[in-house]
């Protein structure tokens, strides 16, 4: 029966994603079912209703090979290659500027918040 373990774990993860799908359909606002499923699993893990060992091996298989699952949409770009080619430099400019802005804003905010937290901590100790 041990060999069934991975299939059962996989089926459990798929089942939870189907629940996420249903929740996504019922919600009055749009939230992708993948995000809902991630939150659902997170809540179940923290509440102890779902044990890490119930999904660990199959989840690790997916996490360790995560990049592999992105091959289909990437190759799918071929269908729209003329569209991508027609604005390739604009795509590059928008993406790189936004990458720098996003990195700077997020990492500097972390440094700032940690600095403020440290100051508040020092005040309480003083």
């Amino acid at each position, binding site marked *: 029966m041990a060999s069934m373990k991975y299939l059962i774990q996989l089926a459990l*993860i798929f089942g*939870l*994603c189907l629940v*996420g799908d249903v929740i996504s359909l019922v919600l009055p606002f*749009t939230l*992708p079912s*993948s*995000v809902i*499923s*991630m939150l659902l*699993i*997170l809540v179940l*893990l923290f509440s102890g209703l779902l044990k*890490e060992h119930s*999904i*660990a091996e199959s*989840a*690790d298989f*997916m*996490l360790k090979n*995560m*990049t*592999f*699952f*992105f*091959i*289909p*949409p*990437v*190759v*799918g*770009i*071929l*269908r*729209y290659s003329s*569209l*991508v080619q027609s*604005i390739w430099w604009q*795509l*590059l*400019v*928008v*993406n790189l500027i*936004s*990458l*720098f*802005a*996003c*990195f*700077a*804003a*997020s*990492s*500097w*905010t*972390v*440094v700032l*918040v*940690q600095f403020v*937290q440290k100051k508040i901590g020092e005040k309480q100790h003083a």
Partner: protein
Amino acid sequence: MLEIVNSPLFGISLSVFAFQAGLFINKKLKNPLANPLVIAMLLIIAVLLLFDIPLDAYEEGSSVIYMFITPVTAVLALSIYRQRDVLRQAFFPVVLGTLAGALAALSSVVVTCNLLGLDRTILASLLSKSVTTPIAIALTEQFGGLPALTIASTLISGVAGNLLAPVLAKLFGIKDAVAHGVGIGACSHALGTSKALEIGGVQGAMSSISLSFSALWTVLLAPLFF
């Protein structure tokens, strides 16, 4: 010949072998530019063009792999759960850092798209490009954009983040490991996170948490920018 390539097994095995080749070449060259995903893409496209195989035939099989995108994203919950101690310590910096990152990414896309005179369909396709692909595609579809442009953009962001992760920290004077990890995850999702894991344990952990929080913030905030 056509019977063979029309079987779903063709697309699946081609993808697996192409990715294996990508991993092998990446290991041999030790060059971040030799990205396994990019190599696999080029190999598959080369095979399809060389043997004149229609993309539809390949997608018979690749759609089976693509089916895993939702479960793969969902089990990121486990990687966050495992880092709960780190998360507890750095909760507020991570939450606020990813919020700032999402706001910066969204507003910079709107500004640069307007400056370059790109139309609203393209803006709709690029708005969510900093976050993980399945979520970015879902948002693009919601806004009526073109998923192909979103995929191209998330790929550019991911690969650029993967390449530039060490340089970005130097450029912006970031010495703190938590801040570095959050920055990588916020701007270049899973592809950047794989680089963060190579830089260090804390960077990798923070980047994983950051990509999840960034996705959430972007889902909540993107409608305000469109």
